[in-house]
């Protein structure tokens, strides 16, 4: 055990049991998985991505490149979880990944022996040839070797949700700068949201030993949080990572509501996605401790100096029985001395500088820590670290240590400042990139802005929090910032120890200093090319800790300096985000809304089989005992054609148009004329897009002089409404027309078949529905079922005598039941969308497959409907020569020469004997059905010069499904071509 005997923000009175790779360990509340593993002496936690090198814990935060584990088991198994951010809970199960058969002995670690050939660009250079090898050999090989953890293979049993939050000031990070910013803004009355990715608020202050306002940093945190908690206008959000900054002051954040529990509490989500809309924001995300690149720097036990200190001070853990530090700056030296004061056995501090501040030397001596100036670590030893070699001007010597804390200085965490295109700028004084152009409304405070001392952080936070509140419209004056006891920070820029041996720049993607040098030699010198060529910074950690050293080494090689070399930028998300939380509530049956028709419950009772059409759930057919779908559909079609059938057609879009210009308006949006339509009549209309192609079709009825009601196809209801609003508001604002969607208001039921009139006559309240009283294409407003408002349209999609009866939606089910009762005598048969489709194909009516967005009215045989006496949307472009080309595939019908053969939609037409080439393509089949009326398969399609070729034979060639059927070109009107049945 390496738990220190006292100290740390852990609850030692309680013990949490957990397992790692099946072995049992114990930790305490307040631990992370990483701190608990270290407390149990577990230093080897994973294998690297490419070389499968043994790796240990490097950081104490979300920037962790190495310690990725699988968490939980079964359906809740979650790969690639950073052990440094996992809050320990009782019975937690974690597993190492990227190793086989075990973490300790990993077969693929043999890759290390091949490291000389697995360098940067290896994949580009190797898996090039022969091309045929790619799919069969290379890709499976790479896929097996690559990847880190395994995703769960069962559905995630947990729930996720999304929520939106509005605030005046969003503060990101709860360290010294974040807390003071939140306090300053909160005190003005501004709505403040403080997001902290850690489960405990306080950031670096949780391991800070300097004083604030004469008290401990810990006390300052306690008081600040108590004050913020007391403000009704402040919201504290621990376990919440702001992962992206977006336009207009929107931020994305993930709250890990239940990740610290074995499973979520009842009715609680696992995670919650927040969209935060902030008038102003303060980025106080701190800084990362920067690694130094030196041979053997990836050995388990080598970690960030600040992490080494944090494990000792915050978690009461010694990361090794004996430790040393390798530093370039006073901040890290102070931190590791704090750790030594907390009980860590710190043998030595190796600092690259010729001298460090005398006060620090004095303190080190008092703690029994040797200070080695002008020192560099040139080698490490052990599977897990057992010794390091120190090189000084006096020579080299070995230090026997199990942990080495490394700090090359601070890299401001400016990730979010880049999300809207901001480019970091180099600040030579601190040898770091700081935020450049910030997203509008954002200010960067404290270490994130390169203001690295505690004093600067609290001053920044206080000032920027106040300014943010002021900018959001709150009045406040700047209060004095808290006083801090920290000393000025000294540092030197140092990146890379020049000594032999593999020295890692990016530990997660196994990029070494040699790879950077190779990229330089091969000309990939721009930072963007360096990144892609070596994969530096392209792992799941996005190179938070590694990018800087990589580009510093490149800058050294090119001799250009870092400012000129520049840096790559960051994109969202800051840390990986689970797809589940992005989906939220919308999964499974809730993936999208399900829209039932008004008669859904009735259809369920009838045993309907339903089909999703867009969002709608419609009855597809109504099988009887022993029937398959084909038998059911055949029966429904025959029953309708010979007797009477009924179907709910409420899903059509319905639009109410009122106003004196309604007729004129319709003339401009349809190719045919509606201003001359008499009151009480309906007409089929075709609508084009301005490019001349068909947008939609449907019938529109005139109910009164200035009152029409339009129907659209189910699929295009919203699109047509938007189009009509565009025409009215943008194209012709002078027209006096009012639109209202009535799609939800009216249920509409079609009754079709030779007996339809008899059924209808039993429902109407005395309305004359005779052929004279309500002729074909007539429309009447009346009542049915004893006083229920209704609109009856004599329309036919099936080709039979037909009526569509519309009643207020809540009466829809009652109407259906009344129709069924009225029709019982005639054997009325409910039919679904399948039979509807068969009957419209038999009649040669176009539908979705023909209204494909690639067909003109002329292509569909509807060209003669177009008025030549007026302008309408799409008229000019429909007259383009290409659209008038007689060779354009045009709408006709098809039947198999051998009537027993089945046709398939999608088959392409070829002249008999023509080779199946694109040049010989003459069009394609759009819709097919088995016609129970004719007893064979029939099809509709678009054929070059189709109407001129009636009677000709062509091939319907379908190479995808192996179809090759000889078909005869025929009229698309298979049944009742003269349309007599619908007019009786």
């Amino acid at each position, binding site marked *: 055990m390496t738990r220190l005997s006292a100290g740390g923000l852990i609850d030692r009175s309680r013990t949490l049991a957990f397992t790692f790779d099946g072995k049992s360990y114990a930790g305490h509340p307040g631990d992370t998985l990483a701190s608990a593993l270290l407390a149990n002496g577990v230093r080897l936690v994973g294998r690297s991505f490419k070389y499968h090198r043994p790796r240990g814990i490097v950081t104490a935060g979300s920037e962790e490149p190495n310690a990725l584990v699988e968490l939980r088991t079964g359906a809740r198994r979650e790969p690639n979880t950073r052990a440094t951010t996992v809050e320990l809970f009782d019975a937690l199960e974690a597993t190492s990944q990227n190793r086989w058969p075990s973490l300790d002995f990993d077969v693929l670690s043999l890759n290390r022996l091949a490291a000389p050939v697995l360098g940067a660009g290896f994949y580009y250079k190797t898996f090039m040839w022969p091309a045929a090898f790619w799919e069969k050999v290379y890709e499976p090989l790479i896929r097996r070797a690559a990847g880190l953890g395994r995703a769960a293979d069962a559905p995630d049993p947990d729930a996720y949700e999304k929520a939106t939050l509005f605030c005046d000031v969003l503060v990101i990070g709860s360290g010294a700068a974040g807390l003071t910013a939140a306090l300053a803004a909160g005190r003005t009355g501004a709505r403040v949201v403080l997001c902290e990715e850690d489960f405990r608020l306080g950031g670096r202050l949780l391991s800070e030993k300097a004083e604030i306002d004469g008290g401990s940093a810990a006390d300052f945190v306690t008081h600040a949080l108590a004050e913020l908690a007391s403000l009704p206008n402040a919201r504290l959000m621990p376990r919440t990572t702001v992962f992206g900054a*977006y*336009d*207009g*002051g*929107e931020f994305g954040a993930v709250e890990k509501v239940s990740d610290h529990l074995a499973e979520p509490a009842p009715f609680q989500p696992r995670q919650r996605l927040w*969209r935060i*809309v902030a008038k102003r924001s303060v980025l106080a995300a701190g800084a990362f401790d920067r690694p130094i690149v030196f041979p053997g720097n990836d050995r388990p036990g080598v970690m960030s100096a600040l992490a080494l200190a944090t494990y000792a001070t915050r978690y009461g853990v010694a990361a090794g029985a004996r430790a040393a530090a390798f530093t370039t700056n006073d901040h890290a030296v102070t931190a590791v001395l704090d750790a030594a004061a907390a009980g860590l056995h710190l043998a030595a501090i190796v600092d690259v500088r010729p001298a460090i501040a005398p006060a620090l030397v004095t303190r080190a001596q008092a703690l029994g820590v040797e200070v080695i100036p002008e020192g560099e670590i040139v080698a490490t030893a052990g599977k897990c670290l057992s010794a390091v070699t120190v090189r000084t001007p006096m020579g080299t010597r070995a230090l026997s240590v199990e942990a080495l804390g490394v700090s090359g200085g601070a890299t401001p965490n400016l990730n979010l400042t880049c999300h*809207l*295109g901001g480019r970091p700028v180099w600040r030579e004084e601190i040898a770091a990139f700081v935020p450049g152009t910030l997203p*509008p409304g954002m200010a960067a405070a404290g270490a994130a802005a390169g203001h690295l001392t505690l004093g600067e952080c609290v001053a920044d936070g206080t000032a920027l929090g106040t300014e943010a509140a002021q900018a959001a419209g709150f009045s406040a004056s700047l209060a004095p910032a808290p006083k801090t006891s920290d000393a000025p920070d000294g540092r030197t820029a140092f990146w890379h120890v020049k000594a032999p041996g593999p020295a890692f720049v990016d530990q997660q993607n196994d990029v070494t200093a040699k790879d950077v040098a190779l990229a330089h030699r091969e000309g990939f010198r721009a930072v963007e090319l360096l990144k892609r060529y070596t994969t530096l910074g392209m792992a799941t950690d996005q190179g938070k800790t590694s990018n800087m050293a990589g580009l510093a080494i490149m800058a050294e090689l090119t001799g250009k300096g870092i400012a000129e070399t520049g840096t790559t930028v960051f994109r969202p998300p800051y840390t990986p985000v689970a797809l589940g939380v992005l989906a939220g509530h919308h999964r499974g049956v809730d993936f999208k809304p399900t829209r039932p028709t008004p008669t859904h419950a009735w259809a369920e009772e009838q045993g309907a089989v339903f089909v999703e059409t867009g969002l709608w759930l419609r009855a597809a057919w109504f099988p009887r005992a022993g029937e398959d779908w084909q038998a059911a559909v055949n029966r429904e079609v025959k029953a309708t054609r010979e007797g009477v059938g009924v179907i709910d057609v409420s899903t059509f879009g319905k639009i109410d148009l009122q106003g004196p210009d309604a007729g004129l308006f319709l003339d401009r949006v349809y190719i045919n004329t509606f201003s001359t339509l008499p009151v009480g009549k309906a007409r089929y209309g075709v609508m084009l897009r*301005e*490019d001349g192609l068909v947008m939609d079709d449907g019938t529109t009825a005139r109910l009164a002089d200035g009152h029409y009601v339009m129907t659209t196809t189910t699929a295009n209801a*919203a699109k047509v*409404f*938007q189009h009509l*609003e*565009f025409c*009215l*508001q*943008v*194209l012709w*604002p*002078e027209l006096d027309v009012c639109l209202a969607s009535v799609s939800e208001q009216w249920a509409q039921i079609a009754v079709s078949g030779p007996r339809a009139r008899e059924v209808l006559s039993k429902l109407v309240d005395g309305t004359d529905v005779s052929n004279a009283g309500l002729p074909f294409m007539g429309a009447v407003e009346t009542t049915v079922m004893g006083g229920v408002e209704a609109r009856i349209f004599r329309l036919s999609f099936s080709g039979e005598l037909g009526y569509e009866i519309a009643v207020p939606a809540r009466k829809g089910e009652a109407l259906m039941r009344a129709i069924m009762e009225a029709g019982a005598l005639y054997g009325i048969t409910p039919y679904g969308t399948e039979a509807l489709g068969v009957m419209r194909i038999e009649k040669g009516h176009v539908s979705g497959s023909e209204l494909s967005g690639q067909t003109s009215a002329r292509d569909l045989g509807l060209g003669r409907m177009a008025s030549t006496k007026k*302008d309408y949307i799409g*008229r*000019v*472009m429909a*007259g*383009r020569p290409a659209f008038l080309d007689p060779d354009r595939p045009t709408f006709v019908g098809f039947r198999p020469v051998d009537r027993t053969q089945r046709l398939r939609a999608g088959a392409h037409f070829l002249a008999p004997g023509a080779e199946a080439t694109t040049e010989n393509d003459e069009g394609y089949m759009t819709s097919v059905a088995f016609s129970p009326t004719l007893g064979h398969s029939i099809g509709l399609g678009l054929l070059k010069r189709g109407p001129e070729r009636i009677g000709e034979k062509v091939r319907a060639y379908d190479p995808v499904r192996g179809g090759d059927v000889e078909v005869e070109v025929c009229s698309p009107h298979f049944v009742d071509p003269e349309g007599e049945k619908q007019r009786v």
Partner: protein
Amino acid sequence: MRITCPYCGARSSHEFAYLGDAAPSRPDPAGPEAPETFHVYVYERDNIAGVMDELWYHAAGCRRWLTVTRDTRTHAITAVRFSRTEAAE
């Protein structure tokens, strides 16, 4: 991105449908050059890097077509107005 609808207030851009450049106006269909002018109207658009007027439809809100002045480089929106002028309301 957020768009401040003159009627509904600031809303997420998810509520709006985008059409594109607001500048082209429907040519005279009876004009002698109608085939050419309509071709330009339907197909030809400048790819503007900078401030432009765009048409957006507040599909999930007040169902108004809006003319939005937006900098395509920064997504900064400086003005939003109803495409149909108030006089017509």
